[in-house]
């Protein structure tokens, strides 16, 4: 690798939320990959998505790990704030789990994993007949893959996500405690928080989001408005370092080191075994039970190319639930596979494009067709 230090070598501030899929950023920093590509980077841990978004929008962060649907929301001004970000890489595929309280899991009874939403629907209808309120389930942000994948799964089971359950937002590091406290009866959140809730007895594993849409794209690397145009070379260098980190992460030999790095930088409060299991895509249904491998575990290397065709599924979901009604070209404009191509050309071996199974979120007829 022979990349001279860039003349514009100001430090870039990159935000992340403590989640397993922040791994490519944490690894790129810890292994010195940013420096090898000639850029200075400071990683900044953030408490939640609203804080991270605002810092990215108002310039106190230059780039961040971001929810794909949040980049769309910013592009079309769906949350009130409008910013044209630049998405130059995907950080992971899959990697979220749906976890239910032991009581709700018991009400559903012995069911195969991944849980069929019809089984949850039966349990909820039985509760409704007893005059009990619908269960409260948490997602991590309104404009999130978690929200849209969970809604799709619920609807496929005949449940109306806006009536038959109560959906609330709880930041990822708090979901396990909210479940233990009885404030929520289930959640869909990024790992390792689901594994943590199962390991400490607060929850029972129901399914992974990769069971809903196998190999769905997850978080992205997004740059603040205008940065890619002004400092293109640095943006490509940062992207190349993240791609290299993703390749390193997909080598099983590096898993123990990756788990230790994540513990150091993101989850000092969690045991190494929980973080390793999350990285490997192994889950136990209940504490003490033997773990099994997920059909679609977290992937890094095949996630890096940001693809509009995949992001279109988030836009379809946002339209379905009335969260955005926007022009597709405008909504997906942040996804820049051309910048990824130029970054990938600096990495050896050149990473594969990667492709998800066609999204079920795109296969449903939309009400607007009626």
């Amino acid at each position, binding site marked *: 690798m022979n990349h001279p230090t860039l003349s514009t070598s100001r430090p870039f501030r990159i935000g992340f939320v403590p989640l397993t899929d922040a791994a490519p950023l944490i690894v790129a920093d810890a292994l010195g990959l940013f420096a090898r590509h000639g850029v200075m980077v400071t990683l900044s841990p953030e408490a939640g998505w609203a*804080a991270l978004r605002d810092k990215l929008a108002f310039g106190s962060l230059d780039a961040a790990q971001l929810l794909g649907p949040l980049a769309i929301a910013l592009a079309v001004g769906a949350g009130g704030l409008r910013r044209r970000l630049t998405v130059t890489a995907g950080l992971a595929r899959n990697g979220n789990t749906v976890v239910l309280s032991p009581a709700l899991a018991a009400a559903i009874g012995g069911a195969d994993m991944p849980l069929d939403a019809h089984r949850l629907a039966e349990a909820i209808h039985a509760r409704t007949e007893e005059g009990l309120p619908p269960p409260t389930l948490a997602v991590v942000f309104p404009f999130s893959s978690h929200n849209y994948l969970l809604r799709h799964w619920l609807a496929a089971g*005949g449940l109306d996500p806006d009536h038959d359950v109560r959906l609330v937002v709880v930041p990822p590091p708090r979901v396990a405690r909210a479940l233990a406290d009885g404030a929520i009866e289930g959640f869909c959140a990024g790992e390792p928080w689901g594994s943590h809730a199962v390991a400490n007895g607060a929850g029972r594993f129901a399914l992974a989001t990769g069971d809903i849409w196998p190999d769905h794209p997850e978080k992205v690397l997004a740059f603040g408005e205008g940065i890619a145009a002004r400092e293109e070379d640095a943006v490509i260098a940062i992207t190349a370092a993240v791609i290299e980190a993703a390749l390193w992460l997909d080598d099983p030999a590096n898993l123990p080191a990756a788990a230790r790095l994540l513990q150091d930088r993101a989850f000092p409060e969690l045991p190494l075994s929980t973080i390793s299991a999350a990285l490997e895509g192994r889950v136990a249904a209940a504490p003490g039970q033997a773990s099994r491998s997920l059909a679609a575990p977290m992937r890094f290397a095949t996630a890096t190319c940001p693809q509009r065709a995949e992001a279109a599924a988030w836009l379809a979901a946002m339209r379905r639930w*009335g969260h955005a009604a926007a022009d597709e070209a405008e909504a997906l404009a942040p996804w820049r596979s051309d910048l990824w191509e130029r970054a990938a050309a600096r990495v050896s071996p050149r990473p594969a494009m990667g492709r998800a199974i066609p999204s079920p979120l795109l296969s449903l007829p939309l009400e607007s067709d009626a």
Partner: protein
Amino acid sequence: MGGVHLRVLLIDTDANRANEVQIGLELAGFQVVAVSSDTVDLVGRVRESRADIIVCDLDDPSRDALESMRVLNRDEPRPVVVFASRGDADQIEAALEAGVAAYVVEGLAPARVRPVLEVAIRRFRAFQALRAERDEARATLAERTVIERAKGILMQRRRLSEADAYRLMRRWSMDRGLKMVQLAEEILIDK
């Protein structure tokens, strides 16, 4: 808004800082109705507090839940003023222009806080009025809800997949010359 005491819900996970901010807000003439920190049922607390405006720190994790109240349009959204301890003047101006939720003020100097909160409330109301007009024009949210509920009933009653239930409703609506939403309403009444 002049003479009226605006009710402020202050959310802060840091009790010491919350205390300082509360004193500042009261000096600026606000009625601080609740100080809630680390609350899981934030939506319930916001509703109970009957607050006119919510004030919280840029880095407070509660902000994600507040965001959901605004986006999901279901739980009487309130204007939110976000304050940051750091940040330069340019950033603050940009935040004010964005006009909806994220008003970033440098600290909470009593002299500065009152106009910022009042502007936040006015802009928020204007935005809500715009949104209400837009929603009325489309009326999609209500129609969608009715259609989703009717579909759920059909799926349960006839053990159909979601796509099959939708196709069935679509066929019925075409056969009978009804709009999807009218048919869905009939299904709900029959329930």
